[in-house]
């Protein structure tokens, strides 16, 4: 049971948070359907090279936020997510992605004007 998530070597974001965001994205984008079984905290920790403390924390947060559920003795599963919740998460995922892109632009020395220019180019290409 593998799910497509990985821990970034560049990001300073804590691992549990990276895992949380990536699982949320997989659920919101429909790649993980409701009732899909998720790897155990031990198996996921092994895949990602982190400790079970980290994966347990990510699962706990996802459970509290209503994205997954744990069935005693059976494992952890994806939950049916409410529509408003979906919308909110979608917005957040895209917002964060833009923020990262802009940060990178600033890092290589782009001006506000340049970044804006690139942004409208990409938009034009995708929404003709």
């Amino acid at each position, binding site marked *: 049971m593998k799910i497509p998530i990985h*821990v970034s*070597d*560049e990001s*300073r974001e*804590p*691992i549990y948070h990276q895992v949380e965001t990536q699982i949320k994205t997989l659920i919101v984008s429909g790649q993980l359907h409701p009732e899909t079984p998720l790897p*155990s905290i*031990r*198996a996921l*920790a*092994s*895949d990602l*090279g*982190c*400790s*079970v*403390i*980290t994966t347990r924390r990510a699962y706990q947060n996802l459970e509290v936020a209503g994205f997954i559920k744990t069935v005693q003795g059976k494992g952890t599963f994806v939950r049916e997510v409410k529509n408003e919740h979906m919308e909110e998460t979608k917005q957040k995922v895209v917002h964060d992605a833009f923020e990262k892109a802009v940060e990178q632009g600033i890092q290589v020395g782009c001006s506000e004007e340049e970044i804006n220019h690139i942004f409208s180019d990409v938009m034009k290409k995708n929404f003709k």
Partner: protein
Amino acid sequence: MQTKVLEVTGLEKRFKKFHLGPMDFELEQGMIVGLVGANGSGKSTFLRLLMKLMREDGGVVKILGMNWKEEEEEVIYKKKIGYAGELLESFDSTTIKDIKFFISHFFPTWNEEKFTRLVERYRIDIDEKFSKCSKGTKKKIDFIFAMAHEPQLLLLDEPTSGVDIVSQKKMKEDLIRFMEEGERSIVLATHTVDEINQLCDQIMVMDQGRITQSFYKDEIHDHWGRVWVSHITNNVKNHPNVIRFEVNPAQIVTNHVSNVEDVLQAEQITINQTQRLSMEEVLEYLIEQE
């Protein structure tokens, strides 16, 4: 739930040329701790002391909630521990089948079905004499005997050394599965980075009979890193959290990224990029550093 399966206080053992401890160590239920360190750093001695295969010169151990010094309790907790070291060497020219006959009687929780399954899984010929087996096969047999009585605590001394790649992978899978069933724990002495990466929650570094470092694996992820910078000043070179530096391209290796970032800012040094270190690299620094 924070039950401790191991509480070691001031454990000591003196040999003519080697002194172990005093060691303090704790392990929580549900955790896997990796014991790393150069050859001869005391990892095996530590495990053998826990198993009472030799007498300690000082210190106290609580193991699975029981007093390690009481002989009546020793009989009870030993049945709940799976130890894979060089315990079977004394059986020498006995066949695996006969060793099993002997060992299975010692453990009330012996799981014959599990033993059979593991013997098949690792392709062990149980009619073979133990002394005739290769080094890797002996390791697999050690492993099977440690697992087959459904222990609560595993003490594994380099379980995969000399073992073929496919069996190594199977052992890792078996250990992960072992941890899934209830509240179990493992102490794993190892030289294999993959095992640290894929199995361990905690790492304990040993050097010359002492524990020099002990932490959760995620702390490495959070704090260790390589930072590429515009230039390096003396204050940076001499900073206690800077482990190594190179001038061209200017970069530093640190065990505390955020502490070093503060210094870099104060010195008006630009950070070009930060990257986390691989476990292999970190272990190299940790073991070499001492």
